[in-house]
């Protein structure tokens, strides 16, 4: 029993040249993701703080079309995560052409998400009159927090699409290894993960039935 316990501890914390049994790129991406997660957490907590502190917080999202539209965006982003994981899987099994196809599909999902998001922003800005500094409901913090949160997330998606484009070209030319695809996958899944918190907190909590 005691031996088994010692063995477990050794397996968990065994040091050596590679204490986490992964390459430096992957560890670097994990560290970046954790720091970025803290940025988004601070923004989401600030949003929740203001939401609770404001008695007449606007609820501009009608179930149809706003929530259905945001649900479609969630579906697109979740599906792009599936195609990304398939790309990593293909690359791990040495199927480069297949991996490129999956990465391109992921990029298409990302681009579709950005287009849908831009359409939604246009609707809010042009038709509802919401800007980062003013809105018809006289709660300017709504626009400020909404555009800051969703804007930062959309920036991450755009950067992700560009990053995946570079990876797809590299994989197609035989330059990148499976680890490189996996690292880009980590970033893409993180972007998806953040949306899993923005969608309910920002959209579903401000729904207007």
């Amino acid at each position, binding site marked *: 029993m005691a031996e088994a316990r010692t063995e477990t501890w050794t397996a968990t914390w065994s040091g050596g040249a590679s204490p986490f049994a992964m390459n430096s790129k992957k560890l670097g991406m994990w560290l970046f993701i954790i720091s970025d997660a803290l940025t988004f957490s601070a923004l989401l907590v600030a949003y929740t703080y*203001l939401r609770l502190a404001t008695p007449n917080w606007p609820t501009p999202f009608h179930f149809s079309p706003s929530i259905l539209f945001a649900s479609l965006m969630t579906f697109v982003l979740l599906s792009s995560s599936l195609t990304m994981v398939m790309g990593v899987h293909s690359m791990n099994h040495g199927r480069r052409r297949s991996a490129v196809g999956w990465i391109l599909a992921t990029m298409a999902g990302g681009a579709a998400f950005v287009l849908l998001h831009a359409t939604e922003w246009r609707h809010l800005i042009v038709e509802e009159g919401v800007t980062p500094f003013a809105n018809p409901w006289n709660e300017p913090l709504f626009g400020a927090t909404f555009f800051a949160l969703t804007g930062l997330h959309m920036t991450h998606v755009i950067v992700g699409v560009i990053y995946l484009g570079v990876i797809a070209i590299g994989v197609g030319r035989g330059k990148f290894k499976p680890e490189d695809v996996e690292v880009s996958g980590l970033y893409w899944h993180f972007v998806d993960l953040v949306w899993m918190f923005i969608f309910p907190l920002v959209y579903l909590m401000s729904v207007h039935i």
Partner: protein
Amino acid sequence: METRSATAAAVTTKTFVWVWVALLAMTVVEVLLAYFHVPLLIMLTALMGLSVIKGSLIIAYFMHLKFERFSLFLTLFPMLVFCILLLFIFMPDSFRLMEMRPR
């Protein structure tokens, strides 16, 4: 290192599809909660609970953390959760602000 990569690579695509289906199903539940307009506190608790489960599935399966060394999890996540919990120290103040508003 090979053992860990091999474990992650051995996961079948079927597992990923099941995780994706579970994530979609939980999203549908979230949307239904909003549609039926359940009380705010119940809704916030349910939505955050579902989001944490969804996030955990993404991290464990899509980001392969389940197949990494446990030391990586211990190094990164308790610190992250602790820092996020620290952010909530400000939260009671939001209720105080609401009470202070002129009616």
